[in-house]
C-alpha cells in the first residue's frame, strides 16, 4: 500500500479516504480484522494519534467496529459498502462531466465522447464487434452538424 499525502488537507482526512478505499476494493475484506493503530501508523509514516483519529472516524461511519477479542474489524454490512461505493462512482462520473464541460462539451456531447473513446480502445482488443460500433459512433458524429 502506498500512503501518499497531499499538502492541502488534514492528513487524517486523507487516511480515512485511503482506508475506505482499501475496504471498498476488498484489500481489507468484510469481516476481516485490520492491523493495530501502531502498525498502521508506522506503515503510513504518521503520528499514532493521527491514525487513531482516522480509525475513530471510520468507526463513526460504521465501516469499522471494535471487537473485544480481535481489535478492529471491517463491517459486514453489505448495504453500507454498496452505498459508499455508489457515492464514489457518482463522484467519478460528476468529475468526468465537469472536466468535459470545462472543455466545452455539454452533457450529451460528453456521453458521446465517452462512448467513442471507450469503443475506440476496444478496436485494439477485439476486431469485428468493436469496429462496427466505432463506425456507428463515427456516423453519429457526422450527423451532428446537420442537427445544429
Amino acid at each position: 500500500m502506498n500512503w501518499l499525502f497531499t499538502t492541502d488537507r488534514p492528513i487524517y482526512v486523507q487516511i480515512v479516504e485511503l482506508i475506505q478505499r482499501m475496504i471498498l476494493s476488498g484489500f481489507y475484506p468484510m469481516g476481516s480484522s485490520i492491523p493495530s493503530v501502531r502498525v498502521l501508523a508506522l506503515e503510513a509514516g504518521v503520528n499514532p494519534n493521527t491514525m487513531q483519529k482516522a480509525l475513530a472516524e471510520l468507526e463513526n461511519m460504521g465501516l469499522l467496529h471494535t471487537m473485544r477479542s480481535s481489535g478492529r474489524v471491517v463491517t459486514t454490512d453489505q448495504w453500507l459498502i454498496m452505498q459508499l461505493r455508489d457515492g464514489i462512482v457518482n463522484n467519478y462520473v460528476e468529475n468526468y462531466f465537469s472536466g468535459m464541460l470545462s472543455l466545452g462539451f455539454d452533457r450529451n456531447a460528453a456521453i458521446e465522447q465517452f462512448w467513442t473513446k471507450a469503443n475506440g480502445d476496444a478496436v485494439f482488443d477485439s476486431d469485428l464487434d468493436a469496429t462496427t460500433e466505432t463506425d456507428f459512433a463515427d456516423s453519429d458524429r457526422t450527423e451532428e452538424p446537420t442537427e445544429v
Partner: protein
Amino acid sequence: MNQVNPAYPLLQTQNLTKTFGNITALYNVNIIVPPGRIIGLLGPNGSGKTTLIKLVSGLLTPSDGQIWINGIAPGPKTKTLVSYLPDKLYFDSWMKVRDCVALFADFYTDFDRSKATDMLTALGVDLKQSFRSLSKGTQEKVQLALVMSRQALLYLLDEPIGGVDPASRDYILETIIRNYNEQGTVIISTHLIYDIERVLDDVIFLMNGMIERVSSVDEIRYQTNKSVDEVFREVFRC
C-alpha cells in the same frame, strides 16, 4: 519507568523570559504541553528554539518566569524525566561508540541498552569504531539513538535530522513513531518541516523569542488548506 502525575501538564512555562545581556532571547513564553504528543518547535534561526529547550532541560536558568516539568521545576529530579538531544556533539574524542553506550548506561537508570544497540546496528554504526572517526551525520545518529533509548517522559530533540541523509531521516522519524507512548511527549526543533510534518500532532511557532502560534497540524491544514511548511514560509518570509 517514570510515571506521569496526571495532576500536572507534562510541561508548562509561565511568563518565561531569558535575556543575555541586553539581548532578549525569549520573552513572556506561556505554553502548556500535555503527555502523549509529538510537537514541532519551529522558527527561523535566532527565534529562541534552542534557548527554550535549554531552559526546559535545566542548562539555562530563566531571567524571569517559571518552568515546570510535570509539576517540578528543572533540577536534579527532572533530569530523570527529560531526555535531551543537544544541537552540539558532546562525546569525547577518545571514545568508541560502545563507550558512549556504556556512559549512557551508567548515567541513566531508564536507559535501554539493547534498544540502543539494535538502533545503532540498524543505522549501520559499528560499536567498535571511535566516535571521532565517524562522519558528522553518523555522530548525530549515535547521539539520537542513545537519547531515544531512554524511557523518559519528555524528549527534547534540538535539530535531530539536520545533518543526516534522507534515508536515515526516514529511519529516525520511524524510530520516533515506534517509540511513541501515551505518557511521553517529544518536542522536536527543526527547520526541515516538510520532512517531519506527518509525524507531528502540534506545532509551536517561535518568532523573535515570542510565541507566534500554537496549533495542531490538522487545524492549520483545515483553516488554510496549506501544509505547515507552506504556512511557515509565509509567516517567516524575509
